[in-house]
């Protein structure tokens, strides 16, 4: 590992921080549990067949809940996955590109990278994937 030019955080502080994050998550789970328990004690429970029917739009449901949907949603999410993988590289880059020893060339490297991304976006645009119908 090369000598680091950026200040490092001590592992003790790091674990302290994340144990706090974990604690908040635990507190959140506790909060939800307490809320549900209280609700369980307070609320009435009178299930009827009619009540347990899927509401849908007020009319008795026909068929099951599953239905064919447009493939378009899937294409969008696929596009997103690709672009998101691109985008996360921006963050480590953002933290170092202006540091001494990087500068212009790193900027150009990232612009090349973003250029490819933009070409991809333009391609999708041109092919009409971004238009709905």
């Amino acid at each position: 590992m090369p000598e680091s030019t950026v200040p490092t955080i001590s592992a003790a502080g790091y674990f302290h921080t994340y144990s706090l994050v974990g604690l908040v998550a635990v507190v959140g789970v506790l909060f939800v549990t307490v809320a549900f328990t209280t609700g369980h004690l307070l609320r009435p429970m009178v299930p009827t067949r009619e009540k347990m029917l899927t509401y849908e739009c007020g009319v008795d449901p026909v068929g099951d809940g599953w239905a064919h949907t447009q493939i378009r949603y899937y294409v969008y999410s696929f596009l997103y996955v690709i672009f998101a993988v691109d985008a996360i590289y921006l963050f480590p880059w953002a933290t170092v590109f202006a540091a001494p020893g990087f500068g212009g060339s790193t900027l150009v490297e990232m612009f090349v990278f973003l250029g490819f991304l933009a070409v991809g976006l333009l391609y999708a645009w041109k092919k009409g994937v971004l238009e709905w119908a």
Partner: protein
Amino acid sequence: MNPTLDMVLRAVGVLVVFMVLPLTVGQAEHKVMAHMQGRLGPMYAGGFHGWAQLVADGVKFVQKEDIVPTGADRRVFQLAPVVALLPYLVVLIAIPVGPHGFVGATVDAGLFFVLAMMGVGVLGSLMAGWASANKFSLLGALRSAAQLMAYELPMLLAAASVAMAAGTVSLPGLLSAFHWWWIPWQLVGGLVFFTAGLAELQRPPFDMPVADSEIIFGAYTEYTGLRFALFLLAEYAGIVVLCALTSVLYLGGWHGPWSGSVGWLWTLVKTGLLAFVVIWLRVSYPRLREDQLQKFAWTVLIPLSLLQIALTGIVKVVIS
């Protein structure tokens, strides 16, 4: 102070903020929306201008029967609100409120952490929509997932621009590097971030996933009582998180006159103003169509945020 006690206090503090601020935003929405439509809004609960309306709502929600449709996938259905809610609670801890370490926890990858956690919430909508055994709910879930995916990207790109400007992804670090001229410099990024955040929270005018007039209430149609309340709470907590994050990233958070002593107040004021804008937009604009929404994200917001990145990069290298 005892470190364990300190941690517990911080965690409880986050929970208190999580309970109070979303309710405040909700009540403000009741009142602001009413007055913008020439009405008064709730006036009775609690006496003075109906300030306790949401408390009363909460009490009502807890007492309501919890119905899980027979056709539904019971476990997933019951778990979905929790999955939708918890990310926002966890995220709150990383948002700096004031100077001198007035923050729940200094997460080093704070910005990245916040964005990643906010993206998890969509699983809650997807689970709710699928498990409801309801066609409209499924459609709503698909819409909300597609919408989240379309808008997460401009959000990431716009946030990356701020990270570039500050040279760090830690939120307190970002704020300590802040200068006033960042506001005009990052203006486009800020607008993109805020708009994309609105869409991610499914707030009007980006509320197709819950469009009541076409797909009833999207993924939340089958929910009643407490579980429905949790979804609502998640929405308002999301507004708080988005507004706080936007003010931290683009408006300088606690920076302002006398920020040494009243910095936390500046954060609150900026967050509150942004929350007002969120409500204002809801009252003013009609809902977009699903295709307009996707097109807007991919052909307007993403190119804009890429431009912002280019601008930030060039300016940063020139001045350094």
